């Protein structure tokens, strides 16, 4: 039953492929339009920038600012649903499970996420705390979603994908913006102001607040997972004679509900400085400094403070037919964890270091064939040097078709949650040895994946483009939880080891079609197989290390319609296949968003979310599974 829609969708997409002759061909007459009219033509082709990114021969999907605005998404995780190559499941009022190419869970640890170049992947928890990440949605320029390994550029943990959230240059966010959204269960408001600085500079400053009510389980029990959050920040950009400087910062504070205790308290602040210098002959130099502080005070669990400083540099050089990039970086984090009664991290306090060097060369072998080879070597506190090589080939017989292939080795390096996790946090001593039930895991090594990708991308006509990627990935040394089998007093203590392996393979397909000038369709489909198994000798005692719960397929169909001059109507139908462990039934859902441009400065939007069912769940087993209700959201945006 779950397979039919997938097949039909793909069949539908195939059947419309040939002979597309849509409207909008302005051939010949386009030169008669005025400058203002030219300004208003919606071009659906891949931008130069996107094209340059996709030249990297990777499975890349770009979520544009327009996509986000038209979808009505009010948070980063909800916006990520627009990427057909991501699995997104809402867990409760504030938690999400987001991954690419399998291994999804609320603790998904193989997907790297960066906001304006700052990694938000926690080296403490080897996952992204989605409840701690927020940006002003209207100030996002684009979100680049790369499924597949990106380690040669982005380093360890970019195993199954990389998400780059890129906000607008301050030059592009001038004036005052107020946006307010409210529904029966959630609400948020953002106020932003942008202005000019001396020395050819621009700035914006913002403040935002949001609140989400608790959700209920399928059995109708309150989960107390609601939250409130406040954030403020700024960004300033200066154009220099030969380059640019960007400086941005955010500070936030949040209260998260928890059953039976006071609220979990989150706070954090960060500062990012970026310097770009254009050198002669299209060479460039980029330097970035990141300072980041996060604090998570969770009653009954721990109080964790993490401070990070990171410096990165990259130099791009063009030599003949070579485009060479090389650079390096150093990151230092200090994690200070005060344990609660149940578990802790040993030692309580630890300094973590990462240092990397990388070089990548793109060679134009002929007019149509490009080869890219690169390697990053990254040194970390736990496992020493990790080699992260990639080899990519792209063949573009003409401007509208590219066939590419890539072979990469990538690594997830241990986090504190892999190496230093202990329970109980204050053990009794037995023969001079702390008697943990789960001890530290000094032998836990990096998880490794070797990935082969084959892709095809084409824009055969102005109104029709698509991308197809097949991958095969071989995973080794996946995390398991094993009893120690050496001598007493260590025997029997559980520790994380790497006694599992797996492989994934699948197909990612997305397409964009504009049948009429005022109507666009986007479709995306992923079909995948995710297999893991224990190696001989493994006595894995729990599934904690090996949570695999991925659908075999998921797809979406998105329609964007312009109604008259002042209305836009969008809807998205999405499907998620059933998941086995814990069982989540497959579901279809429909979201719709109607935007009315009441005046040049005011937009009013009415969204309907989860329209197909009174309530549905996306993650977790019955009856504890959270359910999300059908609801309406009203949003007002004003710009002056």
């Amino acid at each position, binding site marked *: 039953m779950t397979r039919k829609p997938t097949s039909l969708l*793909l069949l539908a997409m195939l059947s419309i492929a040939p002979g597309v002759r849509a409207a909008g061909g302005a051939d010949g007459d386009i030169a008669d339009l005025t400058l203002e009219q030219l300004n208003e*033509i919606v*071009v659906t082709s891949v931008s130069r920038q996107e094209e340059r990114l996709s030249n990297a021969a990777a499975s890349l999907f770009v979520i544009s600012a327009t996509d986000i605005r038209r979808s009505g998404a009010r948070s980063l995780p909800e916006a990520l649903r627009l990427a057909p190559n991501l699995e997104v499941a809402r867990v409760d009022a504030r938690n999400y499970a987001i991954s690419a190419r399998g291994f999804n869970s609320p603790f998904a640890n193989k997907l790297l996420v960066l906001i304006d170049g700052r990694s938000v992947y926690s080296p403490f928890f080897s996952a992204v705390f989605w409840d701690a990440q927020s940006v002003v949605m209207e100030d996002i320029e684009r979100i680049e979603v790369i499924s597949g390994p990106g380690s040669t550029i982005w380093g360890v943990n970019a195993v199954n994908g990389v998400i780059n959230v890129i906000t607008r240059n301050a030059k*592009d966010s001038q004036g005052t913006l107020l946006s307010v959204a409210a529904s029966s269960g959630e609400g948020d408001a953002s106020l932003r102001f942008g202005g000019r600085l001396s020395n*050819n500079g621009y700035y914006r400053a913002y403040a935002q607040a949001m609140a989400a009510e608790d959700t209920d389980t399928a059995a109708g029990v309150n989960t107390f997972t609601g939250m409130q959050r406040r954030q403020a920040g700024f960004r300033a950009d200066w154009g220099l004679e030969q380059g*640019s400087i960007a400086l941005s910062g955010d500070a936030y504070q949040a209260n998260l509900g928890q059953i039976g205790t006071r609220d979990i308290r989150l706070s954090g602040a960060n500062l990012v400085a970026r310097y770009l210098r254009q050198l002669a002959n299209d060479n460039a130099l980029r330097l970035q400094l990141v300072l980041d502080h996060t604090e998570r005070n969770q009653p009954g669990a721990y109080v964790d403070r993490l401070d990070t400083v990171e410096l990165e540099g990259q130099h791009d050089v063009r030599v003949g037919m070579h485009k060479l990039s090389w650079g390096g970086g150093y990151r230092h984090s200090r994690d200070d964890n005060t344990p609660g009664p149940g578990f802790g991290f040993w030692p309580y306090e630890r300094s973590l270091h990462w240092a990397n060097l990388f070089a990548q060369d793109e060679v134009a072998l002929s007019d149509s064939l490009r080869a890219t080879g690169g390697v990053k070597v990254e040194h970390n506190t736990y496992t020493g040097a990790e080699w992260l090589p990639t080899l990519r080939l792209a063949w573009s017989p003409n401007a509208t078709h590219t066939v590419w292939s890539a072979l990469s080795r990538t690594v997830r390096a241990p986090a504190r949650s892999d190496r230093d996790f202990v329970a109980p946090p204050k053990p009794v001593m037995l023969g001079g040895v702390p008697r943990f039930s789960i001890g530290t895991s000094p032998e836990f090594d990096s998880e490794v994946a070797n990935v082969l990708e084959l892709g095809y991308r084409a824009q055969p006509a102005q109104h029709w483009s698509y991308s197809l990627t097949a991958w095969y990935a071989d995973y080794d040394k996946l995390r398991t939880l094993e009893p120690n089998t050496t001598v007493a007093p260590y025997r029997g203590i559980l520790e994380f080891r790497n006694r599992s392996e797996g492989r994934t393979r699948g197909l990612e397909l997305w397409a964009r079609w504009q049948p009429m000038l005022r109507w666009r369709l986007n479709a995306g489909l992923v079909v995948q197989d995710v297999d893991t198994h224990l190696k001989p000798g493994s006595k894995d005692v729990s599934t904690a290390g090996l949570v695999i719960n991925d659908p075999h397929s998921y797809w979406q169909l998105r329609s964007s319609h312009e109604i008259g001059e002042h209305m836009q109507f969008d809807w998205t139908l999405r499907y998620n296949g059933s998941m086995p462990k814990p069982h989540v039934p497959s579901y279809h859902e429909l979201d719709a968003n109607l935007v009315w441009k009441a005046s040049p400065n005011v937009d009013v939007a009415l969204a309907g979310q989860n329209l197909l069912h009174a309530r549905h769940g996306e993650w977790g087993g019955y009856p504890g599974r959270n359910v999300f209700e059908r609801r309406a959201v009203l949003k007002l945006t004003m710009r002056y």
Partner: protein
Amino acid sequence: MASASLTFLAAPPLLAGGWRNRLLVLALLLFAFSCLAVGSQPAGSTPLLERSVKAAFLYKFLGYMEFPADPGPTLVVGVLGADDVAAELAHITSGRSVGNRSISVRKLAEGEALGGLNLLFVGGDASLPEATLRAAEKNGTVIVTERDDGLQNGSVINFRLVDERVRFEVSLPAAERCNVRLSSRLLSVAYFVQKGGQ
């Protein structure tokens, strides 16, 4: 299973199972797609809309510029690293004029001299060496780019994609350096105007 979803795409014997077969199916699928792609359009005949719009803008720009020296009866537009735009521009300007001047489009190779150009469009990633910039300023050639940091690289006009529309930004200091006057109408339509004295 993945194979079930792909069932209808292939002949039954291929579906005995196993990832090798699925790769074969994929190869067939890729082949099918590429055939559809080639079949649906004679190569190179339909430019992307974005390229057409940029070509049209280039043509329009000519009407809103005052060049330092009298350009004579023909305005010459050079195009570097963007053959699609060059072809489209040649197509839309054939038989058209700006004022009483005809328009000639020249496809340039990297490193070629810029003499006699009124406008130079530098496509995508084509390199823009310092020497080219200096030569353009000396000759009164207006450089138009399409990159994020175009104005910082010294171009007079830079195309950007904003909300899925082609918009352009203008640098007045760069225009001044090559002694070209831009009309206020052009500036009023620009997405962003970089002013001098800063």
